[in-house]
């Protein structure tokens, strides 16, 4: 058991080291969300105002961009296991006495940890770009960010554990990350959209994560996702994302142990 936790720590430590040392990644982790916030905000600002009267566009966009940052970072860090394989480093890890499940959970911890750091960076940026935050909102957001990042890191790892080459990486970007992002209500509210879009977005677990984040942010001004006539509250959405995350994580561990 001690070895198991030791393995998690060693692997996660390397992920953090990468994050801290990679300047380009640090800078892009700031600029990307801000860019999205400014451009999408300017573009969709009025539209969203019409769709949801009384809601400020920035207040609507910001939680979405926050979730997007967490989503991108988590999945990407998870998939980075493909890089480790391609550059041979995975072998060094695999012949070491580290525990296999610990290696995978370490990766997940690292990925989630980095995503959480990104989320915190976003929270720090908020007042600068003119989003109003209260301590209550921040406290409510942090557990949601953690849950979402764990679930999405697990997804990234599940994909990464099965993928053999970097070529598959681009495909993952296009077939998994972008659809998940666009079908989650990050950029536009999912009320009153075409039925097929609504169905797809309700299958997408990210939708619930973002919805919970947005509910914390905007309070009762937005209604939760309605599924089979039931409107999901913050806790329910969070639990759903957590459940999906645990299933994905178990799947990733199983898949990794089986193949390596």
């Amino acid at each position, binding site marked *: 058991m001690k070895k198991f936790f*030791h393995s998690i720590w060693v692997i996660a*430590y*390397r992920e953090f080291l*990468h994050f801290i040392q990679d300047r380009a990644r640090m800078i892009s982790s700031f600029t990307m969300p801000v860019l999205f916030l400014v451009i999408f905000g300017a573009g969709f600002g009025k539209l969203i105002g019409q769709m949801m009267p009384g809601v400020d566009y920035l207040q609507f966009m910001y939680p979405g961009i926050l979730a997007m940052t967490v989503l991108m970072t988590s999945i990407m860090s998870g998939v980075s296991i493909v890089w480790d394989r391609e*550059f041979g480093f995975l072998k060094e890890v695999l*012949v070491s006495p580290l525990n296999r499940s610990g290696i995978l959970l370490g990766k997940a911890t690292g990925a989630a940890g980095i995503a959480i750091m990104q989320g915190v960076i976003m929270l720090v940026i908020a007042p600068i770009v003119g989003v109003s935050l209260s301590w209550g909102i921040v406290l409510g957001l942090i557990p949601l960010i953690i849950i979402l990042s764990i679930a999405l890191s697990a997804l990234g790892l599940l994909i990464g554990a099965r993928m053999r080459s970097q070529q598959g990486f681009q495909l993952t970007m296009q077939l998994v990350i972008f659809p998940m992002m666009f079908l989650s209500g990050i950029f536009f509210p999912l009320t009153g959209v075409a039925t097929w879009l609504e169905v797809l977005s309700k299958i997408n677990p990210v939708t619930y994560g973002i919805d919970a984040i947005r509910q914390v942010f905007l309070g009762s001004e937005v209604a939760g996702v309605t599924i089979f006539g039931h409107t999901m509250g913050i806790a329910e959405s969070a639990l759903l994302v957590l459940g999906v995350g645990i299933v994905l994580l178990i799947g990733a561990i199983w898949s990794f142990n089986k193949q390596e």
Partner: protein
Amino acid sequence: MKVIKVKNLVKRFGKLEAVKGVSFSVKEGEIFGFLGPNGAGKTTTINVLCTLLAPTEGEAIVNGFNVIKERDQVRESIGLVFQEPALDDYLTAEQNLRFHAYAYSIPKETLEPRMKALLEMVELWDRRKEKTNTYSGGMKRRLEIARGLLHHPKVLFLDEPTLGLDPQTRSRIWNHIHELRKKENLAIFMTTHYMDEAENCDRIAVIDYGEIVALDTPDKLKDAFGGDVITIKTEDNDKAVSLLKNQYNLQPSQENGTIRFTVPHGEEFLPGFVSGFPIRLISIGLHRPTLEDVFLKLTGRAIREQEADQMQQLFKRRMRMRGH
């Protein structure tokens, strides 16, 4: 004491039998070489011994531990240098070593002096703060050797330790290996397809198509070869070959316009042969058998033919890794 014991090891990938029941053992402090062409089963055997692959049949014991049942103990007993670099290029040399130390739970007190000693041995101490993506191929390999030794393994596995390196770097790496053996009483299990490198080994197993075809010291392998190698070029090679077969009772082989055959006591054979051979000779040569000759005789083909192919593959892979 035997640090590696392998008995009837078989590894199948689906229908393909990569290793067909090999048996051998490696003594403490010995340099043991696996010599064979690409695809002979060298790397597969290493992967089984270092617990990356489970054997299909047979038994392998490393440092007294079973590679299937006692994986963790085996992993702690071995150091590995892979055919392809396995460094984290985003980290510095020192950080790479530290990661390794954490993974193997090396206590801090022993780590610091050990790290310094090893980095000094491979002459990288001054560059330890640099990221490894600035390192050349030879430097990376040296760093990996240092890393493989950090946790005081009983056996160091070197899979083609000098593949793709220039001659100076190769001989430098060999100096390190010899130095190591003196200092650490460590067994070294290596694979190679460079004949001159195989000469550095205490014992060599020649492996081909997943089977060990010969296993002995380099000298004994050459002695068992049966005499000296004579190479000739003639004006009519085909006729010469049949003549050598029928009238001289020799077993000549022809390759790239050169005929080669083996005779005991070559010096005494030559004068009579030159004056009596009916076909005009263009050139004639005599040499003591090399491992290359041994290999050629045992497997019926030259290892050099495959080498070009292998380098090409390696080059392609490197290009792909850079994203070209």
